[in-house]
């Protein structure tokens, strides 16, 4: 009993036709071509992100490099190397833009983003390296959790519009999804952190503990992560739910779903194994595009919780006018988002052969 296959390429893969091997090779070739095309697109996007990062300080009025050097000299004398590095990153007045661009690219390729003002005199890359794992861990976990929960709830509410579940959960999740992320974070801190005192109100772990893979430290990481994770899941769940619900509504009236029902299969099986498998494709395709939005929201949530990820670093950079840190953060966040996008796109290409057919 095969689940309906909607793609001709997949059918050719499975069918033991005489020319099956050739069809299989063609399909593989198509997936390789798809991956290469996506890779090209994201390489292009990465190049634009780097170039934006190069252009922004140079398009701004005034001379950020000299201002920055003056600001740092107040704290401590800079070496000649450090001054040169700042000029390379933020613009040397008088030098042709093209030459500046080439030296800039060389510097970025070596992960040399200059010295942080806020964490003087730590190099920017060292600062960012401490924040990246926290953010990537939290974003990865919450994005996948909210996708899974939201989609599953969407299957249930979309399989019977107007049911009790649908008329409670759909408006509620839509309501939660319309709230600003950081305000939800403030409310949760207020309720569970300050009033009830159940969970810590900020930070990534207990300040008395030394980071290590010990039980107490990991427990403290988990308890500090609950509220930020809850904020992210609660606020991004609604989009997945509504999207899946609306797709399910159209899918359940398809003939193959009717057939499955007529065969007397259990309701859960019909919904999850037949209807949902096809209805979920637009959600999976959209997953890549939401990563940027989720990361943007996460940055603000981290600030509310003083969570030691890149969002909080960005806040530190903004409040102490630390341009080197800020710029490097923008670059690293953008490149990480692009990498995540590429990963999500590749997964989508794997599960939906139609994506490989069309040009993008």
């Amino acid at each position, binding site marked *: 009993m095969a689940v309906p296959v909607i793609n001709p390429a997949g059918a050719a893969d499975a069918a033991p036709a005489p020319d099956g091997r050739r069809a299989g090779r063609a399909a593989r070739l198509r997936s390789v071509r798809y991956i290469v095309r996506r890779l090209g697109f994201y390489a292009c996007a990465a190049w634009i992100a780097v170039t934006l990062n190069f252009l922004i300080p140079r398009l701004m009025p005034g001379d950020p490099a000299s201002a920055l050097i003056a600001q740092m000299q107040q704290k401590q004398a800079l070496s000649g190397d450090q001054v040169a590095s700042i000029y390379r990153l933020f613009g040397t007045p008088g030098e042709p833009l093209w030459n500046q661009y080439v030296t800039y690219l060389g510097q970025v390729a070596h992960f040399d983003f200059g010295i942080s003002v806020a964490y003087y005199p730590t190099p920017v890359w060292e600062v960012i390296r401490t924040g990246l794992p926290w953010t990537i861990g939290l974003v990865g976990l919450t994005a996948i959790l909210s996708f899974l929960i939201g989609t599953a709830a969407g299957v249930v509410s979309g399989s019977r519009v107007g049911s009790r579940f649908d008329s409670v959960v759909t408006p509620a999740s839509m309501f939660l*999804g319309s709230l600003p992320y950081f305000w939800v974070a403030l409310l949760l801190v207020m309720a569970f952190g300050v009033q009830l005192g159940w969970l810590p109100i900020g930070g990534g772990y207990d300040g008395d503990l030394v980071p290590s893979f010990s039980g107490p430290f990991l427990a403290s990481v988990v308890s500090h992560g609950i509220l930020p994770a809850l904020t992210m899941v609660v606020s991004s769940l609604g989009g997945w739910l509504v999207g899946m619900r609306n797709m399910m*509504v159209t899918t359940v009236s398809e003939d193959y779903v009717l057939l499955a029902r007529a065969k007397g299969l259990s309701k859960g099986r019909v919904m999850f194994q037949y209807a949902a498998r096809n209805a979920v494709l637009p959600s999976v395709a959209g997953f890549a595009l939401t990563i940027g939005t989720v990361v943007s929201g996460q940055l603000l949530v981290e600030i509310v919780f003083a969570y030691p990820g890149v969002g909080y670093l960005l806040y530190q950079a903004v409040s102490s006018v630390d341009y080197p840190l800020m710029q490097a953060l923008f670059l690293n966040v*953008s490149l990480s988002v692009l990498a995540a996008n590429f990963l999500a796109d590749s997964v989508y290409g794997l599960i939906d052969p139609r994506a490989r057919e069309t040009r993008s």
Partner: protein
Amino acid sequence: MKLPGNPKVRIGICVFAFFALVALVGPYVVQNLMGLSPSDVHTADAMQGPSGAHPLGTTATGEDVLAQLVVGSRVSLLVGLVAGLVTTALSVLVGVAGGYLGGRADSVLTVLTNICLVIPGMPLLIIIASYVQGRGGWLTVALIIGLTAWPWGARQKRAQTLSLRHRDFVTAAEMTGESRWGVITRELIPSLAPIISVSFLGAVVGSMFADAGLSFIGLGNINITSWGSMLYWAQNGSALTRGAWWWFVPPGACIAVIGVAAGLINFGIDEISNPRLRKPPKKVRDRAEAAKLRRRTEERAEPATAPKAQEATS
């Protein structure tokens, strides 16, 4: 103009109208009729909870929260409107032009849109805003938001334009010698008007969220009273740990209510265009309920014949 029949859309539009009204006349009412000031410092009444004199309490420096909320609505809505206009104009231009022209122009515009879509907006916004350092006031913030927020809309409008591209009225306009620009402005944009106006609403709300987020981390202009700057000062005045919920709940709640209203309108329009998403009308539900009840009472009345009755109904 007639209001659409869908109750969700109606409620959403009423909420927007209410806030527009508050932004227009509210500051006058609060300052001149109720005698509250958003900026007068009274250290004696600092951090007071809601009371008769201060309906929404006071801040850490004794400013009245209600007055700030009402006066701040004007700036928040203005930023939203201007940024929403810029966003919508750019997205219509890129999306409709790409969808209509097709060919190489479309490929270039599509790649550009997709690239701007995958580069995360908030960090870019933060960087540009921190270089600008509040120069130019709320207008600059609105422009920056508008310049970074257009790709979503452009994608959607391109898809819609593609579906109109080969309709008869477009071909007819081309036959009569209408220029490309003429077809776009006189034929395509008017027929996309409903979609454009809905996405404008979404852009306004999105921009208000972005503005609040920027102000919340101390960018934009925190010395002008707006909902975002209220949240910034509340966070900095440790309203959270001191339990001053009346300080940070109202501005966030206003943003949230506007967000929910936009969500309602979107949802309602989905329901109008796709009847399957609607709950069955009340008449149908009542009839189903009555049938169920009748079956149950019949079963109870004649337990012996119940299986037969069920057979008959099923």
